[in-house]
Each structure stands twice: as C-alpha cells, then as structure tokens.
C-alpha cells in the first residue's frame, strides 16, 4: 500500500505514548478536536493521560465536555481555555469542582476568541481582529484578548492572539497511511483549523483507506497530509462520543461517568475513591483499545451504537 520511499505516517497504538511525550511537554498546550459529544479524540485523550504528562493547558473547539472532564478528574490539567464545558443536559462535575476549588485556572473565553486564535495561527499572523464583542463580561476577563484600533478607520475594536497548540489530537472516520484525513461526518467543526494551527498533529481514524481512494475524491479530503504528523488506526477511537455516520454517542456511558464524578465532587473519600476506580478501569488499566472496548460493553454495545448511527 505504501509507495517506495514515501514516508508512512501510520503509527502503531503502542507508539502513541512515546509520540505524545515527544510532542507535548509537561505543562504544554493541548488542543482537542470535535465538539461536545462528536468526533472527540477519546482514545488519544486516554493515551495522553497514560503518558503521565501533567499541568496541561487545554484548548478545544468552542464546545467541550466529557473528554476534558475526564482529564481534569485524572489530575492532568492546570489551565483551561475552553468556551463552553458541558455535557449538554448536565454540567461537567470535575471541571466545575476543580474551578470552584481553584485547582485549575479556568480562563474565561468564548467561541470567537478561541476560533480567532486558531484562525490567526493557521493564517500565520500573530492575531485576529474581532469586532463582535459588546456588553459581555467575558471580554473583561479573557487573557487571549486585547483592545486595538483599526489601522484604516481608527475605530476601536479587539484582537485575539494566535493560538499555537504544542499538540493537537483529532479523531476522524477515515485516513490514509500518509496522513490524508477524510471526515465522513457532516460536522467537522474546527478540526481543519486546529490542524493548521498546531505545531504537531496526531489523528486517530476509524478506518484506514487506500491513497487511491483519497485521490479519487480529493475535494473530500478534510485535512491534507502536510498538516498531519501521525495517523493511528483506532476503530471506535471516539467512544463514548460519536463518530457519525459510523457509530453514535454512548449517552449511558457518559451519564454513568457524570453520576460518579458528581458524587465525587460533592462527597467524601469513598466517592472520590469511586471516581479514581472509574478512571483506573477506563483509562489506566486497559492496555489496548480492544481491552478498553471490552470494558465498556464489547462488541454487542458497539453494534448497538453502530445501529443507532445507521438509523439516523
């Protein structure tokens, strides 16, 4: 499948720990793709946690939830630059608890400051002008933002600074061994922009496809190989978030976590031990993706999620 002499960017799952450690320093800025409960790079999030990197600073497309909550619960996070952090039908317990206990610095940012920052970095310029912030307290507390004057009109407006993540982790449905990525999902959010903004990019894909197939539908390539450092074949790598049209969101899994994490937030040692146990069973103990998938219900549960996606 590989052309002679061309660099293959497909890496084995067991190499991920080494790559994460190489690309992401202690205290580094990590960017997460997808949005809320779709296309979140959950298998890669678990690899980051297993790598032992701590004091991380997190940035994401403007909607995050389960993934960052798990990372905070695992104690790997020092700062967040996250616009909305929610499980949609309920709040993120670890995020909320850590912010209230001042264990993380939860910066106050919004969609335009984050997207503008990715856009500036992707464009190769130090900032992005923004002219759509009036009356909100978010701007008064936003470390990404400063006031400026339009060089043409003299009118006051704002600038948001370029965001260059040390490492971006993304999940997509398909990719080839050279790192050409194709989303089959309708929504791709900020994934392309994040890939263009980040210093290093690792993408997990549900399927590896042949490069001839990529070439046959080149306009559908969502992230070109020149932005990608490594691609890894991790089927169901977005679980419990969805990877449409292949598999849907495992709401039960997310809800079960949220209940345990919320109890830990409110409770005592026993509740915190239960959360630690959940993290151990779902993040640290499974040696392989297959071990993880067995833990969350195995083939029958995965088939249910696939059927749910198919029925949409």
């Amino acid at each position, binding site marked *: 499948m590989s052309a002679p002499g061309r660099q293959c960017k497909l890496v084995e799952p067991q190499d991920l720990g080494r790559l994460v450690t190489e690309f992401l320093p202690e205290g580094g800025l990590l960017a997460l793709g997808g949005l809320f409960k*779709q296309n979140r790079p959950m298998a890669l999030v678990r690899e980051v946690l297993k790598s032992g990197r701590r004091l991380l600073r997190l940035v994401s497309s403007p909607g995050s939830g389960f993934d960052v909550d798990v990372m905070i619960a695992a104690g790997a996070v020092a700062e967040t630059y996250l616009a909305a952090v929610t499980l949609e*039908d309920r709040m993120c317990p670890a995020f*909320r608890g850590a912010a209230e206990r001042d264990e993380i610095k939860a910066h*106050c940012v919004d*969609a*335009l400051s984050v*997207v503008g920052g990715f856009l500036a970095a992707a464009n190769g310029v130090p900032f992005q002008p923004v002219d759509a912030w009036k*009356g909100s307290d978010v701007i008064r507390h936003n470390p990404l933002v400063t006031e400026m004057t339009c060089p043409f009109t003299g009118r006051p407006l704002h600038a948001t600074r370029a965001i260059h993540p040390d490492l971006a982790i993304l999940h997509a449905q398909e990719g080839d061994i050279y790192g050409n990525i194709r989303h089959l*999902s*309708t929504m791709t959010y900020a994934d392309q922009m994040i890939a263009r903004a980040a210093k290093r990019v690792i993408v997990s894909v549900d399927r590896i496809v042949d490069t001839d197939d990529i070439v046959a539908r080149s306009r559908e390539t969502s992230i070109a190989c020149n932005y990608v450092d490594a691609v890894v074949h991790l089927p169901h790598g977005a679980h419990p978030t969805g990877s449409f049209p292949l598999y849907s969101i495992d709401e039960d899994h997310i809800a079960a976590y949220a209940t345990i994490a919320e109890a830990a937030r409110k409770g005592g040692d026993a509740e915190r031990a239960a959360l630690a146990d959940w993290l151990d069973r779902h993040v640290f103990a499974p040696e392989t993706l297959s071990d993880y998938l067995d833990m969350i219900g195995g083939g029958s549960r995965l088939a249910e999620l696939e059927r749910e996606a198919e029925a949409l």
Partner: protein
Amino acid sequence: MSRTKDCTPRELQAFVLSKELRDGEMGAAGASAAIPMAAMMLARLTHAPDLQIAGEMFVNPRPRKLYDSMLDDRALGACEAAETFLELFGHSHRGLDFFFHNGMQVDAHGNINLHHIGGTIDAPKMRGPGAANISYAHTSRRFYICTNVHSPRTLVERVDFITSPGYLDGPESCRAAGITGGPRLCVTPLAVMDFDPETLRMRLQSVHPWSSVQEVRDKTGFDLPAADTVPETPLPDSETLALLRQRVDPEGLLRRA
C-alpha cells in the same frame, strides 16, 4: 379550530417562539436547543416555509426528531450544507435575524449568565459551563430567552456575570456600549415576558393556562410589572399541535417532564 388543553409547558414554549419567526428570516440556536429547534421546524411547517436555519455550522437541517443537543450529526439529520467554525466566525460578526439563548441566571434586563454564581469569575462559588457564542446576542437583530425553569434563582434582578448581554442596565448603558439588538421575549414554563421599551426591563406579557400572575410573580426574583388584566398565553390549535407532535417531535421529547 379546537384548542387542545393537554399541551405541555415545553410544547407551549416552542409554539410561542414559532409564532415569532417570520418567513425569509435566517437564524439558529446554540447548544441545548430542543425547544428552539422545535420552534423553527414548526414555523417552517406553518407560516414560514422559507425560514433559513443557518449560522451554527449547518444550513437548513432536516432532523427527523428532536434531541436535547443541537450541534451534532445526530440532532441535525441531513442538511443542505455543512459549515465550520470558520464560517461561524463571519456569521457571528454579521449577526442573524434571530437567535435563542438560555441561561443559568437571567436578569430583569435580559442579561444572561452562564459563568458563575457567587464569588468572582476567578474564585467562583458555583462555576457554570460558560458559553460558546456570546456575539449573536448583540450582533443579531433580536434574540429569545428560553428557560427550562422559572424560579427566583434563575430570574434574578441582576446577574452576577454577564455572559451574553441583554439590555445591560437599561437604555443608557446600551447606548454607551453600542448595543442595538437585544432580547425580544423571555419564554419560561410558566409565562411569556417582553421588555418595556422605556426601561428595557422585563414585564409580564401572558401567563400560561396552568399558572397565575401570582405564581409567576412569586417565582420571579425581581418586580414584574403587568397590565391589570394579564392575558392567558394562547395554546396551539389542534392542527398545529398535531404538526408539532407528528412531524417535529414524534418521540415526544417536549412531552417529557
């Protein structure tokens, strides 16, 4: 056309909001948007067939049923075009005709707080989820506040933090900030509020059949002016309710508690 008394609060909220949307307009809702999505879909099926649902990265979605979420493939179904945060960045500057917001706290001037209650943003007593898009509140021509609860904790005199601006502290502060759009209505499970054009404060417009002026006032954390006779919020006729239930919300998400 007969009236149908067994309409639920969330169905009524969707119906009230649907009547606000005019044919040919373009708008959207962010996260947690089952009621706004129902309102937009119902408006399309009734009086606004050319309503354009766009501005949040999908163009004219065709959901087969309602979900609590709104920004994933599941909740949107098929659509005519997929956009990304790049295009959303531009829409956020240009604004939409209408947008929908909910809030952890909503105050008398329609300001919305999703960030913290008590303390400060750096040392919050209770940290909320924050918000993605805070720009549509003032760049759009108008927006609607749609809450899941009506309580003195939700509807407060002044929010602790302005996530998305309503009318700030009234006409003068809006002028100073350059705010031209703003909330049109606040639609809760108990009542419909609009804003006094003089003071830009909320006032009671109508009370849902299952509530009363007294109950609404008791459950509102600020003084709520009202006319001597407050009308009852009109319920959908049976044909409209049938459209809502059969075409928009076949699984009855809005009928659940």
